């Protein structure tokens, strides 16, 4: 049987090295791997490029990494509820790449699905256009949005079986399953781990094949 290794939060944090691109699941800290984030805050890792839907709150979710000045670049769709992000951005110590939320998830999916990018009209006629290739297609204009991949994805699942199959309850799904497809190393933090076969296959929302390590 193909089983995935179970590791500690400290081990998980140690898989992230300074300078890496790290995807962190969650939406306003809902469905975020909070224990791994805490362990990462305890580490000396810095100069991270964090890819996340939002920068959470200053004291919650991936915002903690920003408050602790471990992030040099942030790619996100929303940073408004973490004032620290704005402070560091204005001070020039944090580069923030704001991306429309639907574009961000498609860019991550593109990397995971082996696409060279997608065409979208979101952002046309706005600052989002800047520096991007435009493609004419069927008489319409589109922005070409390129894939975003990561070295490590830190995701959170409600239930995981030992083969890595994941369940994300209700609105904790958000960016988690797609990020799991787009990183070299994928670590899932979970509330609950079960034996293989304990839960029927169709209940799982992400195949274990995407998971490298499980943190309970």
């Amino acid at each position, binding site marked *: 049987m193909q089983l995935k290794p179970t590791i500690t939060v400290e081990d998980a944090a140690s898989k992230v090295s300074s300078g890496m691109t790290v995807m962190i699941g969650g*939406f*306003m*800290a*809902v469905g975020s791997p909070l224990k791994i984030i805490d362990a990462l805050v305890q580490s000396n890792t810095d100069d991270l490029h964090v890819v996340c*839907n*939002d920068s959470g709150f200053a004291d919650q979710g991936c915002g903690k990494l920003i408050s602790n000045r471990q992030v040099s670049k942030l790619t*996100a*769709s*929303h*940073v*408004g*509820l973490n*004032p620290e992000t*704005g402070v560091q*951005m204005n001070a020039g110590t944090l580069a*923030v790449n*704001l991306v*429309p*939320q*639907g*574009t961000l*998830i*498609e860019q991550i*999916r593109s990397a995971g699905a082996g696409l060279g990018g997608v065409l*979208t*009209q*979101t*952002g*046309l*006629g*706005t*600052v*989002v256009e800047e520096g991007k290739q435009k493609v004419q297609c069927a008489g319409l204009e589109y922005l070409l949005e390129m894939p975003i991949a990561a070295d490590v994805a830190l995701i959170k699942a*409600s239930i995981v079986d030992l083969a890595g199959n994941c369940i*994300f*309850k*209700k*609105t*904790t*799904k*958000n*960016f*988690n*399953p*797609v990020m799991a497809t787009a990183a070299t190393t994928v670590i899932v933090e979970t509330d609950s781990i079960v034996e293989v076969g304990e839960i029927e296959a169709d209940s799982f*929302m992400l195949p274990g094949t995407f998971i490298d390590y499980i943190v309970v």
Partner: protein
Amino acid sequence: MSKEIVRNAIAARVAKELRPGSLVNLGIGMPTLVAKHVDDSQGILFQSENGMIGVSADLPDKDHLDNDITNAGGQPVCAVPEVSFFDSALSFAIIRGGHVDASVLGALEVDQYGNLANWIIPGKAVPGMGGAMDLVMGARTVIVAMEHCDKRGNPKVLSKCTLPLTASYVVNLIVTEKAVIRVTQDGLILEEVAKGLSVEEVQACTDAPLAVTDNLKHF
């Protein structure tokens, strides 16, 4: 009018625009109030872009809070019985694929071309666009729900937006406490004015030129 009365008046008027059986996304802030003014019998469903269709107008009971059911602000909400949950890829496929019938959201500025600015004030805080750019490009109808003027009394319905845009040519209807204004290819059409106000009073606090419909109503 108190702030609360103004906000509810706008929300109540927006609610009347929503078609039975439709799928609606309500932006954060005042648009959220729209749900309270929709009759259950209409079978209208509210989407939340973090991955949920079927947000209820009810507020969650503190004693029965489910922290796994949240809105786009991360706050716990209640779900209707036919609720569905999904990831962000499907959520934005729903939004960008034209499956949302109406997107209701606030604005800093709207102009006579239907351009919308609602995500950034340069030099001030930069919240980020979140899902707003996707919503206004993808939803079949875009309804701006906002107070007619800003805190200083300056018009927010402009001839031309001055702030960075959220999107171009996307707004279909503007609902404020003073007026209901439709955006057409020929410019803005004043369709309704609030009771007690004249067309001239609405125009006086509107930067963009307003054509008046033949069939002007009061609300």
